[in-house]
Structures are given as C-alpha cells and as structure tokens.
C-alpha cells in the first residue's frame, strides 16, 4: 500500500448466511481521486460501501481506510465525512442545531454558518428539520458530511431529489474540496454524473468487479454509434449501416471519426441530406446494458 492510498481493500467477502453479496473484491483508492462505485441492482455495492464506511464487518478480507480499521470510529471518522443514501434528523431540532450536533460528534471543527451557506440553507437555520422539504434535507445531509472539510468523503446517491441548481452547487463544493486534496467515493444511479466526474470507476455485478478503470478504459471495449435517416428514393447507404426498426440507420464503430467522415463524404457525393444525424461516443449506459445482456445470455 503506497503512502497515498486512502482506501485499501483486499479479498473482501461479505456473506449473509449462504449468500455471498461480495466475493473476493480488491481495490484501492488514491488520495485526491474521485472513485465511483457503481453496479447493477444487487451487485453488492451497498454491502461494500457499508464495510468501507465502517458500518458493517467484513466476513473475510482486509479493509484499511486512512491506514486504520474503518470500524475504529474514534480514529477514522474525524477524517471522514459520510453522506448516507438514507438517514434522518430529529424533527424537533432546528437546521443549525442538527448541523452543529452532527458536526461536533464527527470530531471536526467548522462553522455552522459556513456549511449551511454552502448548501444555501443559511436562511433556514432556525427552521425545525421536520419542516424541510426532501431536497432541503438532502442538502443538510451534504452540509453535515462536508462539515470540517474531511480528508475522505463518501457520497451515496448525493444528488437524488435535488433540483438542477442544487446539484450544480453540490458538485461545485465537491470540486473545491477535491482541489484541497479531499478524496471522494461516489455511488450514483445517474451514470452521466459518474462519467463526467469520476477519475476511476469500479463497476460491480453479482458481487465482484466486472470492470474497473477510467471511463475511457471502461468504454473502450464497446463501439461508438452513428445514427441517421435517409429521405425517400435516396441511394443505399454505406454497407456498414444497419437498418433499425424505426426506418433509421445505425453504424457501430470503434473508429468514430473515420467512419463519420466516410458517411458525410458519401452523403456529399450523392447529394443526400442525412436527417437526424447524431454521433455519440460509448457511454457508461452502454457498458451497463452490455453487462445486463451478458447476464441474460449466461
């Protein structure tokens, strides 16, 4: 384990009776990285996250977080902020009281006014949390997680229930923390967020990694796609074009730029206007769908 390794997981196994939710999983996350832990439903990412956060004991394997056992809360948690996927506040405490309480229990120092300002809840400081909307509660969740600028930040579905402005604000705060060296572990169902922001992605399926690497590495194995439609009486398109059910055509390619140029040249030569032309690189969605297709086939 290098001195820059923040999370080190070796041979992790999590079992519930005879069912192994996580099987021999190994990965490490370096300081300053934003690592997205993604997975199909029931892939085992929640169990993995719970062990790494220190909420659950591993059945076997070793897990070190910031060099310590993550279950050792008094040592690890003052350096770690956790935004759980689902957790509550006491309805009879105000926003400021809740942020102050959780912040103080986290063992970090900060100003309540500052963290509430980060999530635009300063004007709600004296409002009881029971009167907050779902999105406001989620923002308060985030505020308590980033209280005291933790070295390591877990974000479990952080933007679920947030409007666009709140999402942008949250990601801007995360970026500022990353600029200061904070390591981020993200889980999300919004794949475009992971694709845009993650340095590396661990993609789980049935208890283990199906893929792990950068977005480019994950998407490299699948072709990009070009889609277009032709006007009536147009000549036959290039032979690599595959007719679709809706009368459009698709070209799947590992050489997007070359094949797109060939298609445009063909259209120019024949004086054909390509209707609804789109060219898209491979997305994480495609990688997910490929995993689903593999599972169905197997």
């Amino acid at each position, binding site marked *: 384990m290098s001195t820059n390794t923040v999370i080190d997981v070796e041979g992790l196994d999590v079992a519930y009776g005879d069912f192994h939710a996580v099987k021999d999983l190994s990965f490490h996350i370096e300081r300053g990285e934003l690592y997205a832990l993604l997975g199909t439903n029931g892939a085992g990412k929640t169990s993995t996250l719970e062990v790494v956060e220190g909420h659950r004991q591993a059945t076997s394997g070793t897990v070190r977080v910031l060099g310590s056992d993550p279950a050792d809360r008094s040592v690890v948690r003052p350096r770690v902020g956790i935004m759980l996927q689902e957790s*509550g506040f006491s309805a009879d405490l105000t926003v400021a*009281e809740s942020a102050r*309480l959780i912040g103080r*229990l*986290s063992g970090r120092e900060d100003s309540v006014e500052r963290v509430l300002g980060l999530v635009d809840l300063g004007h709600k400081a004296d409002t009881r949390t029971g009167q907050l909307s779902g999105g406001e509660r989620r923002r308060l969740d985030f505020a308590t997680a980033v209280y005291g600028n933790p070295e390591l930040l877990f974000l479990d579905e952080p933007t679920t229930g947030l409007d666009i402005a709140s999402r942008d604000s949250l990601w801007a705060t995360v970026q500022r923390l990353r600029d200061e060296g904070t390591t981020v572990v993200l889980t999300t169902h919004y794949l475009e967020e992971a694709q845009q922001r993650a340095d590396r992605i661990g993609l789980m399926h049935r208890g283990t990694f199906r893929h792990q690497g950068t977005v480019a590495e994950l998407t490299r194995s699948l072709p990009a796609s070009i889609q277009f439609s032709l006007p009536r009486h147009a000549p036959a398109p290039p032979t690599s074009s595959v007719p679709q059910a809706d009368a459009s055509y698709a070209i799947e390619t590992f050489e997007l730029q070359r094949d797109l140029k060939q298609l445009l040249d063909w259209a120019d030569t024949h004086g054909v206007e390509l209707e609804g032309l789109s060219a898209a690189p491979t997305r994480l969605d495609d990688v997910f769908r490929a995993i689903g297709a593999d599972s169905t086939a197997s």
Partner: protein
Amino acid sequence: MLPLAQAELVQLFRNRSVLVTSLLMPVAVAVFFISYRDVFTRIGSIGYVAAVLVFTIAAFNLYATTVTTLAARRQGLFLKRLRSTAASDATILTGLVLPVGAIALVQIALILGVFAAASGGGPVDAVLLVAATLAAFAMMLALGIATAGVTNSPEHAQVTALPLSIGVIAVASWVGITGTESMALLKRLLPGGAATELIVAAWDGGAALTGSLPLLAPTLAWVLVAVAVAAKMFRWEPRR
C-alpha cells in the same frame, strides 16, 4: 456525549406529548399516592408508598420514555446518522438516555422530599434508600434499552413497554403489602422485588445497612440480564 444529551433535552421540552407523558403523568400519579398515603400506609406501610413512588417514576418516566425515545430515533433513521459520526455506540446510547435519566432522578428526589414533608418524616436510612433507588433506576434504564430492541416504532412502544411498566408496580405492591416472609425467593428474584424490600426497609427502618446490601444483587443481576438482551436484540436501523 454531552452535545447529544443536550440536544435530547431540547427535544424533550419541545415535544409536548413526550413532555406530558414523561413529566406530568408520573407527577400526577405521585400526587395521588401522596394524597392518599394514609390509606396506602394502612394497606402496607409508609415505606410501601415510597417504593410505589420510586417505581411509578422508574416505570412511566424512565423506562417508558427510554423505549419510546430509542424507537423514535431508530424509526427516523437518526440512530443510523449518529453511527456515521465518531461517537461510539455506548456514547450514543448514553447521550440519548442521559436527559431522561437525570430528569427521573430529579423528579424522584423532589417527590420523595414532598412525601417526607407531608408524612412528617423521611427515611430512617437515607443511604440505603439512595442505593436501592439508583439500583432500581439502573435496572429500568437497562430494561428500557433492551425493550427498545424489540420495539419497532414509538406507537409500538405503547404495547411493548406496558407489561413491564405494570409488572414492576405490581411486584412493588405485592412485596410492599405482603412482605417477604412468604415466597421470599420468588419475590426477590422478580424485577423490582428486592429493590422494593430495600426501599421499604430504608424508609421504615428495622434493617441493618450491611445486612440489606446483598439484596441489591438481584436488581443488579437484572441490569446484567437487560444489557445482555440489549446487546443481542438492539437494532440501530429499522427492520426492512
């Protein structure tokens, strides 16, 4: 722990239903027993009234409020949030029950003070009374945490907390009225039985301190049993 205890205290005073249940109801019951102390003294003894007062506060304030509070904090996923901080499980539980424990102690001190003044005399052995009361409170607190382990919601607490609340007051009445000359072992082993015998002896007199202290053992044994049950049964998140 203290920030959490402070926050719980704030919530206790902001939640009117909890306030009424945990503070006013036991006081109303205590006022009833103190008002009719002569009747109850004829049935048992003046020490019996003191024992019933102790277990009224222990059952309807300390025990029932502990069960309700922990079930509510679990149902609202607040326990889960607290476990994502640096606080240990013991710190979290202590912080959550500390205010209700402290309020119960203040309540019983005031109520027994009023009772002593109204009845024209305090306990013969104040040290023994304090020891027995603290042991009884520790037992009810531990039983409250254990009961919270099998309580799904604050509403469910009204069902799960009732048997033991009624039960300890019934045991206190049985022991306080009939004494321990018959079925002594059974009466002392039941929760609240030995503590009642100590409180009666402390108030009425007639028992040496050193001779009475072994009677703390059954009550403290119940604390251990409750802690063991809580360790096995207590859940930090709602059942899915």
